[in-house]
């Protein structure tokens, strides 16, 4: 457990804080560092690689490479392993109940706000939904003034091609540059200091229906990006660009010949059904792989020891399965690829011949776990098909597979073939209304990433409890239009709740505890060294939960629904802050029936970043006329009043 703010020491701390704030540059030096507040003010120690002891329920080991500074947040997942775990622990189970709003920022953009705020060198970087504006805020000054704004001016056509709202899943920071994808298929790099564009690479043609929504993922000097458009008949791919120049180094398609998919002699899938040649062509009716999707629109993780990247591909197009008999490889598939060459090492298709739009794009969290008496290098993956997988990330062998959300599309899981046993009564056929299929197209969990804690060894995820009635209408491929055909009506699964937040044991494949939510839970998760985990709901509740017990310790309703990803950072005042966007949209609202279920009290769209601290203390609130000029109060209040606000 990290430092605690003791009740008795707080006024002193605040007094100290006032002086430090009022005379930032030199008074702090004069006062020295012997204040009783030193403990809580100090950044918690960096723990790049933690082997948990008695506190862990699983014995999991996590690698936090590339070991970014503990008080900062440089990439969407924070680390290669996609843990979304912060070593900051000032905010903990004892004091999280005193979390209050410290400051806010509105970006004037409607649409689902799915990106995590980054913090690098006392600057926060935010990206909006279309038109994908990038903001740099100076968090070292009162009022968090905008340092610069970058407007990339993407094509408005993109707005009408994005399946699930005009979202952007965030920015990556590397070598003084911010790299992100525009909805109109351009990847841009922006100078973090000046906000000027460094390079811009056109990755696709938006007029075909292809868009880009995923956050780039940086491995060394390469940045990996992929496309969106599983509902528009795109030809899915992932590509590596040079960080300095933006030049494309390799591109691996998700369908087509082995050459196009970057499958060569090193490809060693664990299961026989994925071992034949050119399966990306032969598992489709003639030519249909060309518009078969397998887009790469969510998360990538990386094992630096194995030098492998891991990611999943989207559903096949069109979404009417009877139009495309076959397994439809390599859609709804998890790939392991060599990070340097892009060549595939193994693949595992989670849902062959995907009939329900289950994808396999959800995050893969890399954890080393003791399983059946042996430590295995694994990846943990909550698939949209409602199965949680623990997979050997060296070989692609499925070690655990069990449902984490309500499902009825399969009657069980065959561990020998690593295939769910499909329930034939839940297979849709054209022009027939099929009732009560669970989960629906958006799955038992969508793209919203889970987090893992080395302290508990558990994984925390916001999941769904939803079913659908579905009618398939055969679809024709018309470029620039949806190649889709799925007509759905969604409603809550048994229990009546649409959302749930859970802790999962990836070593046993069992749920540890969960919190039921009336509305959808489609936010990312933040795990912290304070043993507090954070998530939000589509109706706007932001919550902090005890990582061990699942007890909700703190909640606040924000100005809009939450589908963003919470992050945490340490300010220049040494305080720990928690940041989250409120701005509902995305798949949580794109099809009206989900919100129409319980329209009362469902918030409208929004675009506000909320930043929290204990008691709401920050450089941006307090008595007197705070200014942003130098981060100190221009008219310092009386010392005794500094806590009254």
């Amino acid at each position: 457990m990290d430092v605690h703010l003791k009740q008795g020491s707080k006024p002193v701390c605040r007094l100290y804080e006032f002086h430090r704030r009022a005379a930032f540059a030199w008074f702090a030096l004069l006062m020295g560092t012997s204040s009783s507040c030193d403990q809580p003010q100090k950044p918690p120690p960096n723990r790049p690689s933690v082997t948990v002891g008695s506190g862990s329920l699983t014995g999991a080991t996590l690698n936090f490479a590339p070991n970014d500074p503990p008080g900062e947040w440089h990439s969407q997942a924070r680390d290669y392993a996609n843990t979304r775990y912060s070593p900051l622990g000032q905010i903990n189970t004892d004091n999280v109940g005193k979390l209050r709003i410290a400051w806010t920022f509105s970006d004037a953009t409607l649409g689902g706000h799915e990106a995590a705020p980054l913090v690098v060198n006392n600057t926060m970087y935010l990206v909006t939904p279309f038109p994908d504006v990038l903001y740099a805020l100076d968090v070292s000054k009162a009022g968090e003034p905008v340092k610069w704004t970058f407007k990339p001016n993407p094509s408005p056509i993109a707005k009408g091609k994005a399946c699930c709202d005009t979202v952007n899943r965030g920015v990556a920071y590397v070598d003084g540059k911010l790299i992100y994808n525009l909805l109109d298929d351009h990847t841009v790099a922006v100078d973090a200091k000046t906000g000027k564009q460094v390079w811009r690479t056109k990755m696709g043609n938006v007029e075909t229906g292809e868009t880009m929504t995923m956050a780039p993922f940086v491995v060394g000097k390469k940045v990996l990006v992929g496309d969106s458009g599983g509902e528009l008949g795109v030809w899915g791919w992932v590509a590596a660009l040079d960080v300095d120049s933006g030049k494309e180094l390799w591109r691996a398609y998700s369908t087509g010949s082995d050459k196009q998919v970057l499958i060569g002699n090193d490809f060693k899938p664990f299961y026989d059904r994925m071992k034949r040649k050119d399966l990306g062509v032969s598992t489709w009716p003639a030519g249909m792989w060309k518009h078969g999707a397998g887009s790469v629109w969510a998360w990538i993780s990386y094992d630096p020891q194995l030098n492998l990247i891991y990611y999943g591909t989207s559903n096949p197009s069109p979404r009417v399965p009877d139009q495309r008999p076959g397994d439809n490889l390599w859609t709804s598939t998890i790939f392991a690829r060599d990070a340097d060459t892009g060549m595939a090492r193994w693949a595992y298709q989670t849902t062959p011949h995907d009939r329900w739009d289950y994808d396999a794009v959800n995050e893969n969290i890399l954890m080393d776990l003791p399983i059946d008496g042996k430590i295995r290098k694994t990846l943990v993956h909550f698939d949209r098909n409602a199965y949680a997988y623990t997979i050997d990330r060296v070989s692609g062998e499925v070690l655990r597979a069990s449902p984490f959300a309500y499902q009825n599309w399969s009657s069980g899981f065959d561990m020998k073939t690593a295939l769910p046993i499909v329930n034939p009564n839940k297979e849709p056929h054209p022009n027939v209304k099929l009732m009560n299929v669970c989960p629906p197209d958006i799955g038992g969990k969508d793209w919203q990433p889970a987090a893992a804690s080395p302290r508990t060894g558990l994984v925390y995820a916001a999941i769904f409890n939803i079913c659908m009635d579905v009618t398939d209408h055969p679809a024709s491929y018309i470029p620039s239009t949806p190649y889709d055909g799925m007509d759905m009506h969604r409603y809550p699964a048994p229990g009546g709740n649409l959302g749930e937040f859970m802790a999962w044991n990836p070593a046993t494949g069992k749920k540890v505890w969960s919190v039921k939510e009336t509305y959808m839970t489609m936010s990312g998760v933040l795990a912290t060294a304070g043993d507090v985990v954070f998530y939000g709901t589509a109706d706007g509740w932001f919550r902090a939960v005890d990582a061990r017990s699942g007890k909700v310790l703190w909640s606040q309703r924000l100005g809009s629904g939450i589908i963003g990803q919470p992050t945490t950072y340490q300010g220049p005042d040494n305080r720990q802050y928690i940041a989250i966007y409120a701005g509902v949209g995305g798949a949580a609202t794109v099809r009206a029936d989900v919100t129409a279920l319980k329209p009362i009290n469902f918030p409208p769209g929004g675009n506000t970043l909320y930043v929290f601290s204990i008691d709401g203390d920050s450089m941006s609130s307090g008595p007197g006329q705070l200014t942003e000029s130098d981060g100190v109060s221009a008219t310092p209040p009386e010392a005794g009043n500094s806590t009254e606000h």
Partner: protein
Amino acid sequence: MNLRATPCAIGIATLALLSLLCACGHSPREQTATRAMSALPSAAVGAAVPLGQLAGAPYSVAALSTPNPDHANPQAIEQGKQLYIQMNCAGCHAYNGKGNMGPDLTDSEWRYGGLPVQIYQSIFAGRPQGMPSWGAALPPAEIWKLVAYIQSFGGSVAVSDYEHARQGDQPGEQVAPEVQAEAQLGSPPVPLARPSPQTTMPPKSGKPLP
């Protein structure tokens, strides 16, 4: 890209699902189109539909008042529905018309106008935020059928309400006496050669369309 291809060419990509619509030759659709053609508004009607209000000129009502020749025609509505599904309109605007990727077509909110000819023009010419232009792919008769199907959702604007829709009027509202008086003056608008900030804009007629 084969946006400019005929509906026949477009449909070939998949199975025989367009066979009804697109038997390439003398299809039922073409025959229907030919039969209906005589009653169709001029193909140039779309070009005469202004997207905004007219500056410094009398309001041109002629083009806006173009009725849909297939309005409330059950057969045309059914054919429009088939087109709506087969041309992937439903993929954006939903099978029930309530929208997801694209706007809701069943409500009273119309970015580019909800009069039949304005809906026609949105389909014919496309719109800048991703709505493709179907003018090269679909003959006017087909587009009017799509308009008829969209009108059947009930959210479009009746021809007689063109001005009310533009000015944000809703059924059942009150009108302030000054506004009413101005509308009743009915003085013919004066064309302005050179509008200046001092010039008052021509009054609206306030009269229902002929």
